[in-house]
């Protein structure tokens, strides 16, 4: 059978790639994930949406599929009535590149972008109904890139202009990720005022972090689009993207090159890099380790040799047939099953008692009015009756008390 030939070839390829991989000593990760978060609401924060969408476009261009990108967009700027260009978001006043493009998958949008959801996403603690496409399903072989942008301060980042995430929260969330083996290496990038304080509390291994500005320092926007009337991109992100544009999937540029490209003249703030938690030398870490999608194939079991396969081939052939036969039998059994499940049809929808409970089928206002007037008429007479009875009673008790008293 031809297929077996292909399979053997494939196996050899796998083995070869593994050997080569080990020889070169490349990263041990097998998949790449990106978490891209814009945290500010409202139209005038257009640039934060543009920042995050530029990053989305970059990681997508470098090969991370939509299913492995978690995009959190805190407001809808693309179809905002104030947007002069419906369905488009631009990160440059020349409007050469539409970031929203023809296909974009936003995983969390609007009110869903909260501190709680962000931490739940990182630590993967959801209820059972949470859809898979909105989960960060990483493992110990995943390289994770986290990008945050918004308004922040010392040790906090504002979400939606309503709540804050503290640097300790993110540090603890990363620690939990590490404990749960949810990443191999993690690259944390943040563009906000006093950004470097946000990763100052990190304590989990294999984390590398970069921020746009140091303590007591603001991050600035790069330029505004006069027609849109808002700033369209932040300086730090602008120059990061400028660097990224020159990178393709086979690029050999390293994180050291990226960090060296940031200067105070460009960014107007001091970019901070934290490497003490990261064991590897930055000039050995390819940018595509985090921004690209490396498909290193690792064989299921590297002890299995080609010979063993050949030996097993005959047996497997039989097993295959047996399995197929079993499956087929099952199918025919199902088909021949005399107790074919019955399909009935029904027109009775929402006929449940519970739904009608507490509901008024015919709400008769006239009846209510008549009853109301009757009640109103009754009240004075009732009151009269009661007050009369009350005086009588009081007299009676007084009298008896008096009697008792005199008796004593």
């Amino acid at each position: 059978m031809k297929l077996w030939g292909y399979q053997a070839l494939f196996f050899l390829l796998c083995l070869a790639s593994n050997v080569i991989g080990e020889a070169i000593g490349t990263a041990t990760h097998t998949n790449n994930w990106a978490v891209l978060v814009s945290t500010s609401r409202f139209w005038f924060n257009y640039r934060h949406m543009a920042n995050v969408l530029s990053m989305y476009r970059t990681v997508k261009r470098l090969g991370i599929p939509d299913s492995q990108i978690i995009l959190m967009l805190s407001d809808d700027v693309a179809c905002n009535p104030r947007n002069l260009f419906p369905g488009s978001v631009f990160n440059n006043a020349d409007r050469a590149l539409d970031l929203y493009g023809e296909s974009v998958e936003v995983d969390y949008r609007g009110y869903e972008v909260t501190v709680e959801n962000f931490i739940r996403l990182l630590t993967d603690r959801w209820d059972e109904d949470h859809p898979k496409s909105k989960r960060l399903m990483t493992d110990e072989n995943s390289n994770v890139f986290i990008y945050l942008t918004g308004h922040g301060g010392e040790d906090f980042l504002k979400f939606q202009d309503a709540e804050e995430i503290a640097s300790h929260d993110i540090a603890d969330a990363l620690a939990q990720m590490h404990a749960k083996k949810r990443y191999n290496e993690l690259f944390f990038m943040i563009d906000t005022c006093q950004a470097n304080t946000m990763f100052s509390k990190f304590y989990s291994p294999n984390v590398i972090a970069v921020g746009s500005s140091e303590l007591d320092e603001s991050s600035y926007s790069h330029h505004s689009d006069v027609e849109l009337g808002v700033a369209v991109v932040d300086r730090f992100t602008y120059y990061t993207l400028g660097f990224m544009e020159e990178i393709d999937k086979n690029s050999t540029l390293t994180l050291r090159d990226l960090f060296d490209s940031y200067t105070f003249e460009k960014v107007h703030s001091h970019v901070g890099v934290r490497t003490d938690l990261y064991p590897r030398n930055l000039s050995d870490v390819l940018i595509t380790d985090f921004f690209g999608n490396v498909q290193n194939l690792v064989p299921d079991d590297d002890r299995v040799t080609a010979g063993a396969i050949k030996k097993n081939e005959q047996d497997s052939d039989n097993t295959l047939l047996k399995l197929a036969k079993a499956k087929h039998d099952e199918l025919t059994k199902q088909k021949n099953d005399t107790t074919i499940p019955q399909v009935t049809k029904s027109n009775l929808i929402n006929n449940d008692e519970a739904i009608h409970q507490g509901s008024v089928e015919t709400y008769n206002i006239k009846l209510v009015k008549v009853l109301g007037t009757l009640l109103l008429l009754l009240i004075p007479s009732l009151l009269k009756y009661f007050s009369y009875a009350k005086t009588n009673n009081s007299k009676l008790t007084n009298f008896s008390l008096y009697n008792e008293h005199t008796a004593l």
Partner: protein
Amino acid sequence: MRLQNWIPVLLLAAIVTAEVDFEVNPVDNETESVQQDVIDESWNAEPGESSRITQSSKFLSLEHPIEYNFREHLDLTPLPNNFLLASFQFYMQSEPFGIDRDQHESSEYSHHTVFPKPVGPIMSQTNTRQLHLRFTHGLWDSQEWGQLPHNGLKSGGTGVELWAIVEAPSKEEALKSWITLANSLSGLFCASINFIDTSKTTFPVSSFLPKEDEAIPLLNQSNHLYLMRATLANEPVCTENLTPFVKLLPTRGKSGISSLLDGHKIFDSNWHSLSIDVNTVCDESTANCHFVMEEFIETVVNVPNALARADRPIPKPLPGDELRCDTNRPHDAFQCFPLPQSKEVSFSISKLFGKKIRGGSLLGEQSSKICVHVPSHWDVMIQVDESYFATDDNCFDLNNNKPHDVRLETTDSKSVLPSKKTPIYVSRALTGYGQDRGGLRSVFRNPSNEAVELVYFESLPWFMGVYLSSLAIESDDPELTLDSVVKSTFYSPARDRERPTHLERAMIIPPNTAFAISFQFDKSLLKYAEYPPDANHGFEIEAAVAAVLTPERYEARTSSLLLSLSTPDFSMPYNVIILTSTVMGLAFGTLFNLISKQLITLEEADKILASTGPRAKLLRVKAKIVNMLQGNKNKIIKSAKYE
């Protein structure tokens, strides 16, 4: 790679072949044994002797055109005032599947042809028999444009609207499935549909029901059917929602009419609506079911604006020399009385939608179709390879994969096909002022000479405390009373944070009448965490639905409302007030202490302490206790003496 890894793949291939055989043999439907033979033959891979095998290879070899259960249709209808309604319609059907609930493996045999893969599992996992999803935004001008397309049955209120019929043993189970369904759809359609919870869900009793002749299959006779509905009125509709709609199509926007679907054009419109309806259709005799799905994407564009957008992306005023001035009036470089828009219109849809149609889908039994609905003085042509073609009925079949373009020309764009008048006009508004109470007023207008029978469905959030006792009718006709208009009411009152107010009224609107029905409500206070980040924006109240039953089936929705609740001041002034109060309090407190307290010397204080200090107090208490004890002793002695 291990050999075992290949087994399921091969197996699946075999099974797929087997299943394909089932379908292409409609003639042999009476015997199962024949089908069984086919399976055996197909995976023993001994072709030749059986004609069925060759028949089945028709599917796999692609020698013949593919014929899947897929149909697509594009309707272009010019509307008055130079608007154009483009309606993209896609119909698809899944392969039949068994309904054996206990053996889930049976689902492994099902495969997907044109029916979108993610939809089936969601439907079966939540036991959903019917699913209806609407994404709508914009204003449909029913005065000018007449009835909504498809009698209003394919468009929702502003935002996202979802209703589904779920099979479940009880209401609680149904709600559970419903929440799961909403969460899954939120992942699929990139919208916050997961915000649907019990406080937004209603169980409609007389609206949103399937047609009378349409019975819903029940897979387990002991179960019941539950219809649930919820709306998210503040949900934006944008490219990320269109993306999954396109990805659900077998053509994925690469061929057929779906290649025209571009977010920039669809959402640069006055009104747009995306809808999906999935039905389960079962055959009672064979216990086989299949899904039927209809996907509609509709948009109303202003043609001159859209064409201008193609030339000038930024809508700036025309330069002076391009203005069309009325030459009968004074005109020079400084003044110009502009002429009304030209009636002469000619445009091609590639200019409107930014690209040409990439041929037909070439997937379905019927070829992709484009129909333009215009009166006779419009010229409609289809362009293929620089040559133009026209047909009598203005409908075109796309039979190849060459780029197509449709051209519309007319000398009088004012005259379009007469629009069908809507049977009823319903509008709704908030009345009153202030942040503690308000009113809701619905105006019904029946301009026709026929009485209109309808069900008016309203679902109001729990933070509107409705007073049904204040229900009143306003009309010029004094004879018109509530009882003569409202035939019956279904009312399920709201419960805080648990369920919304649900009102359904069966009404009859007399001919040539207009009246308003109003009631009052209280605005509740929310808990701090329940306020959204932009609470000052207000809370969107979902549209009311008027489902007309006679004279024709039609659904109209009101616009959504923006209700402003009293919101705490979350921001700066609040902090400023607190800070100022603290500073004021500190200053005032010190001053007050200084003024009201007496200053004395240390000796005086010692003296006072000696008489009033804690030590003195303690001594006094001790003396009291001693006294009391002695007194008690005396009493006891006294009482003993008396006895």
